[in-house]
């Protein structure tokens, strides 16, 4: 039964209740997820490039680590800014509760940052590429759960039926691959040849395609499995408050980049590839934001 049909059937109107709490996790959390996607995504891409194009990608070791450090710190900064008691952040380390994805994520992110600085040391001070590559393997492995822990956190939000672990974890990985490949396309400049950039374009295009497919699957089939999902998705359908932003995000993050990647392959144009990368990064923020906000609009009681 559709949302409007349920309401029509019950003929029930809330006539006195407290105001619904406003947005609990605001845009700060969107930036958190967006920046983390870039921070871990570039590590995935560096790992890929060093194996596929070791000669060309060698000079990207240090710049990539610097970009990762910057975006992981943006992620951490915005996480901290979102806390109502940011000066008690240390409680996570001294009173950890291991059933919480927040705790596990905070610890993993801390180790991840430490390893990023180790990578920076190995590439910039020691200039030891062998040690760098060996360490990078472990950093790449750690980047997977660092990417995924936000999906675990969202799935622990029992109240928000829209966020399911298998889908969200796939979305997080695809977001990291999309953001990582887009950033590397922009970062690599003349250091990478056309073939290497084409590979990044393939990663970008495929992750955009997979993400779009997942969102559309949720959009079409989600309402068929849970009443709460049906009500939540009403906010991005018809004249819902997030309909425009949702579709803008889908076009800017996924559909246009896919189109531009095809065009860039046909015309062998790096400029079009860069345009696809910029759009993907901008659109990813919109997509993440909509998906973060809409479950928070639903009355819980």
């Amino acid at each position: 039964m559709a949302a409007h049909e349920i309401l029509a059937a019950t003929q029930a109107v809330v006539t006195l209740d407290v105001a619904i709490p406003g947005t609990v996790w605001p845009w700060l959390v969107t930036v958190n997820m967006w920046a983390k996607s870039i921070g871990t995504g570039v590590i995935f891409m560096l790992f890929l490039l060093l194996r596929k194009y070791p000669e060309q990608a060698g000079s990207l070791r240090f710049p990539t680590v610097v970009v990762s450090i910057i975006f992981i710190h943006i992620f951490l900064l915005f996480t901290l800014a979102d806390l109502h008691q940011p000066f008690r952040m240390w409680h996570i380390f001294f009173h950890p509760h291991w059933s919480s994805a927040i705790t596990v994520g905070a610890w993993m992110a801390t180790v991840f940052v430490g390893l990023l600085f180790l990578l920076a040391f190995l590439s910039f001070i020691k200039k030891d590429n062998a040690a760098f590559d060996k360490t990078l393997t472990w950093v790449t492995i750690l980047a997977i759960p660092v990417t995924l822990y936000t999906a675990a956190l969202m799935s622990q939000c029992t109240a928000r039926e829209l966020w399911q672990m298998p889908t969200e974890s796939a979305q997080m990985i695809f977001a990291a691959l999309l953001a990582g490949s887009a950033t590397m396309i922009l970062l690599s400049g003349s250091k990478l040849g056309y073939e290497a950039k084409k590979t990044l374009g393939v990663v970008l295009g495929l992750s955009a395609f997979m993400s779009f497919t997942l969102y559309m699957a949720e959009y079409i089939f989600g309402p068929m499995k849970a009443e709460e999902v049906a009500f939540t998705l009403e906010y991005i359908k018809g004249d819902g408050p997030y309909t425009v932003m949702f579709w803008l995000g889908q076009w800017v993050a996924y559909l246009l980049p896919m189109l531009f990647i095809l065009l860039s392959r046909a015309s062998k144009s790096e400029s079009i590839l860069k345009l696809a990368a910029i759009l993907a990064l901008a659109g990813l923020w919109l997509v993440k934001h909509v998906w973060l906000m809409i479950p928070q609009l639903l009355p819980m009681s």
Partner: protein
Amino acid sequence: MQLGFLVDLHLCMGCKGCEIACKVENEVPLSTWRLRVKYVDVGTFPETRRTFTPLRCNHCENAPCERICPVSALHYLDNGIVNIDKERCIGCAGCVMACPYGAIYIDPQTQTADKCTYCAHRVASSMMPACVVACPVQANIFGDLDDPTSNISKYIQTNQGNVQVRKPEKGTNPHHYYVGGGNVTLNPLASQRPDGHSLFNNITTLPVGGHH
């Protein structure tokens, strides 16, 4: 011992005495509520009726708020109460996002999470929660679910078949029961919420803890 709550919705008349008693007892700041009574009007004129549903923390056996709290600020007491340590809370609002009952809020004064604790401080002194004492029709029944001779256990036995919990599909196993509830009273999605649904003002959403 497993403390639990039961509200007989046949008896509740929506006087909001429990709300006020809770506010006073726990010094709950303006714009926030540990307990409130929701009014829902059902039907079309002239065939209408009004329902009253007191809503508070469900003190779940499998509490999502306890699980998601990164610092164990939300924790179980031996008597089954899900309590909160406001000194430890970091204000991540994970619990607010996790609670399927919308029972947790960010206290605008302390900038930490807060919720109904079944008046744990009163219970520790062998007193009843403030809302139970204030209810003029004894619609709130509080006691030990593990004790078959307690009022709440007897009430559940007497009303077998008509005892409900909110959102059982969430698997939280609430220790807060209703007698005489239904879809309209217990399911927030079964009612329309037109803008300005409060009788006394047009405020439909509140800034969380005055922070954002």
